[in-house]
């Protein structure tokens, strides 16, 4: 491919950032200095295409070092990777954490999503606006921008601070003063809470040093891998079938079937992906697992590699989770040094390697096919299924994508034994389950309970509604979920029980709203979220999410177009087309919470 690069060149800082990642350029054709040897060399073909997947890491490298991606930097990356500049620009402008305009040395992302909005985010935004001007105002030192959920809902309000050359830091709960002097301690991993039973998923968190392999091993770590190797591939998959373990990312697909699908696929190259792109508003369980128990994620991925025959894994970590990313990278290094990753894992004669990939601010990339596109260096646009990932996943190879909690639950199956695991919960929803409780409760945090616990019991564990207020409604499953009203709190938290209550467990987010809540602004924020996070590929979602937000804006401003009934009909029509005809789960669930609020007649939306 003949790349026509932008005329501007990179700055020294930008060039060094890219070269640090990719190594020095091999020739003048790839952005280096031309020499006589370069004269008649043809580049391209497979070698060039195989580097495309380094596009997002290269954009990150420049963004991290310089604070934004300039024309010169984009041109240089394009030359280095043989990616057309227009496509590289298309990828860069897809992600909220990549800036292609000028920006301040420090950019503060302030969460104003539904949970933080109930915990002082509005006051925080007002004080930042007063101090720094409107969002995006260019002060050479600091500026701020509102952000969707940052996954810190257990200690809202939250901020993510990025300083060029100094990386990302999380801050929660935010004190306005800390954003002025930017002097604060890095967060501990977060609050976890025990349910009624012994912890099976969270037992190491807070007790095991997340940066020490020895510490992990001395608490039973890597016993699961040893057991797996003894059991063999068939034995392991049979045990997973017996355990009844279903995916915890929202789709509840049986893991045994998924892994067998990849294992049986006829291909020399297969992949395993740990989906740590947790971005559902109100969800923070995977962050806590990755931060607090990173070796468990690595061990479970290795087991997945053994089970499926995949020799390579990607851990795709949400860009807003810098601690999780750092700990996973560290854990991989340690595991590799100990021979637990590499050409001969644990001396058992199989090969497995893991690479961490960082997301860049795109909810959609948690959708598995969008995640493939993101890893491949394309825009994070979902793909049509079929073909399913077990047949054609990342790089068009058979791929198993598993949520972080699901992977950790595999270790629980091995530790407890399949029969004992299956005995926890209900017949169709087995094992322990994590729920992220936030909003108007006394003790927001991460809770591990057996499947089948009722919503009321879970809320009781969290100390009930704070300040002695009553329940207005509970949003189960995050922005993509549905509201449950005070009359339905005895709903059983299982896949089947939630379906019966016209909701779904989704990511395990449980957001509680007290009985003083005006749901108008809540729904508008949810609608805004989907509009912002739609990838823009298919019409029902790209335009439907806009029309939904506009309709809610008119309703809440008391200016319905053609009357309230007509406005409601319009919203229902939009809900139907988004649910029925969108390519992926984002559009298919973008009207779910809004429609459930109308169904329940929640205050502020239905008159």
């Amino acid at each position, binding site marked *: 491919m003949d790349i026509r690069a932008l005329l501007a060149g990179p700055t020294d800082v930008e060039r060094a950032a890219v070269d640090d990642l990719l190594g020095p350029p091999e020739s003048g054709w790839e952005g280096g200095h031309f020499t006589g040897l370069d004269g008649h060399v043809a580049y391209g073909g497979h070698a060039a295409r195989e580097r495309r997947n380094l596009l997002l890491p290269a954009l990150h490298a420049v963004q991290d070092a310089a604070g934004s991606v300039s024309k010169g930097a984009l041109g240089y990356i394009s030359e280095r990777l043989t990616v057309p500049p227009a496509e590289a620009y298309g990828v860069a402008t*897809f992600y909220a954490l990549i800036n292609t305009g000028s920006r301040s040395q420090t950019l503060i992302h302030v969460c104003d999503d539904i949970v933080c909005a109930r915990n002082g985010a509005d006051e925080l935004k007002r004080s930042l606006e007063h101090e720094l001007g409107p969002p995006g105002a260019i002060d050479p030192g600091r500026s701020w921008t509102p952000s969707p959920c940052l996954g810190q809902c257990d200690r809202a309000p939250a901020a993510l601070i990025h300083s060029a050359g100094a990386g990302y830091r999380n801050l929660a709960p935010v004190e306005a003063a800390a954003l002025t002097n930017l002097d604060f301690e890095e967060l501990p991993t977060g609050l976890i809470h025990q349910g009624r039973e012994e912890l099976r998923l969270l037992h190491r968190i807070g007790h095991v040093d997340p940066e020490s392999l020895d510490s992990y091993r001395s608490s039973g770590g890597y016993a699961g891998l040893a057991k797996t190797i003894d059991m063999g591939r068939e034995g392991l998959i049979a045990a997973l079938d017996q355990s009844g373990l279903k995916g915890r990312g929202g789709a509840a697909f049986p893991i045994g079937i998924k892994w067998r699908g990849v294992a049986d696929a006829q291909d020399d190259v297969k992949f395993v992906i740990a989906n740590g792109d947790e971005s559902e508003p109100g969800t923070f369980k995977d962050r806590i697992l990755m931060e607090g128990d990173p070796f468990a994620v690595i061990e479970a991925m290795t087991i997945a590699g053994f089970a499926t025959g995949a020799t390579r894994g990607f851990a795709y970590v949400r860009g807003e989770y810098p601690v999780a990313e750092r700990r996973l990278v560290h854990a991989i290094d340690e595991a590799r040094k100990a021979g637990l990753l590499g050409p001969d894992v644990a001396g058992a004669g199989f090969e497995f390697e893991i690479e961490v990939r960082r997301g860049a601010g795109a909810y959609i990339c948690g959708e598995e096919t969008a995640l493939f596109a993101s890893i491949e260096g394309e825009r994070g646009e979902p793909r049509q299924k079929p073909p399913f990932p077990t047949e054609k996943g990342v790089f068009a190879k058979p791929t198993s994508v598993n949520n972080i909690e699901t992977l950790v639950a595999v270790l629980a199956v091995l530790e407890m034994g399949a029969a004992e695991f299956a005995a926890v919960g209900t017949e169709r929803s087995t094992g322990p389950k994590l729920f992220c409780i936030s909003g108007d409760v006394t003790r927001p945090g991460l809770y591990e309970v057996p499947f089948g616990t009722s919503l009321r019991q879970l809320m009781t564990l969290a100390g009930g509604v704070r300040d002695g207020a009553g329940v207005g409604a509970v949003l189960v499953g995050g922005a993509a979920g549905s509201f449950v009203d005070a009359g339905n709190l005895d709903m059983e938290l299982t896949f089947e029980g939630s379906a019966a209550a016209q909701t779904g467990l989704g990511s395990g987010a449980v957001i509680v709203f007290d009985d003083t809540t005006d749901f108008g602004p809540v729904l508008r924020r949810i609608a805004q979220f989907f509009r912002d996070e739609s*990838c823009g590929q298919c019409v029902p979602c790209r335009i439907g999410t*806009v029309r939904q937000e*506009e309709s809610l804006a008119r309703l809440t401003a008391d200016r319905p177009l053609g009357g309230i009934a007509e406005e409601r009909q319009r919203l229902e029509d939009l809900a139907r087309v988004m649910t*029925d005809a969108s390519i992926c789960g984002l559009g298919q669930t973008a009207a779910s919470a809004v429609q459930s609020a109308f169904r329940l007649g929640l205050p502020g939306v239905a008159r």
Partner: protein
Amino acid sequence: MTITSESVSTVSARVDGTEIEIPEGATVLDACRQAGADIPTLCYGPTMTAANACRVCVVEIEGSRTLVPSCSRKLEDGMEITTGSDRARHSRRLVMELLGSASELDRAGERLDRWMTEAGAQPERFGAPGPESPREAPAPGHHHPADPKFAATVAEPAKVEDDLYVRDYGRCILCYRCVDACGVEHQNTFAIAVAGRGFDARISTEFDVILPDSACVYCGNCIAVCPTGALAGKIEWDMREAGTWDESSQEVTRTVCSYCGVGCNLDLHTQDGRIVSVTSPHDHDVTLGNLCIKGRFGWMYVSSGRGV
């Protein structure tokens, strides 16, 4: 090896109750059309891999939770397809309403007019169209709060950067056809791509540089596949703006391009004795509707008035 008719395997499916048999590899759309169903399509181009973006061709397939885009779903043996269910018709109508509420569709041709009328699509039900806005600016993941007075649109001033063609993106429905034609499907030039996200997604060069500064080679193969008139030759666009473009009075004369030895077919579109545009037939085995800058634009000397 001799290929006989027996060696082509076929699949059977039912479309609205009618049994269909069709060679393997066909799409659901092929089956629907063979059964006589008039399924609307916008992003689908017969010479290209389906982009599967507009979702106007959705149909119902038994056993599928959601509707299925007929253009990009491979037909499987035994599929039960319903094209005219309430559910499928609702989604097709809404897709056309949504597109019409956001983009100017008055140059999208008679086909879309007919489909919209048949479906009873009313794009104006979403409110008065909002004003033009700068489409390059927004940061991904952020937008100005919705204005209750308007339905947001993609309206923006047309990009007139040279004498050959105009990019009038207020008419764009983001069907990806121009991007695919510029890229791997046809030209392999990669001058344009989709940039931005969500409703702010748009067709753009790198950093929105003007076309002459981009990798564009002015083949115009993007114009050839644009279904809405968002991309047009400058002469055609000027005439349409002035209200003098009159397709009914135009003649089309097929000839062969004289520039090189490939021998591409050219269709000369003439109005009042002057060439107003040049295309190549989409069903031509060699060109698939594509030309190069010479074939598509290298005829203006004919009417320059300065003689040979």
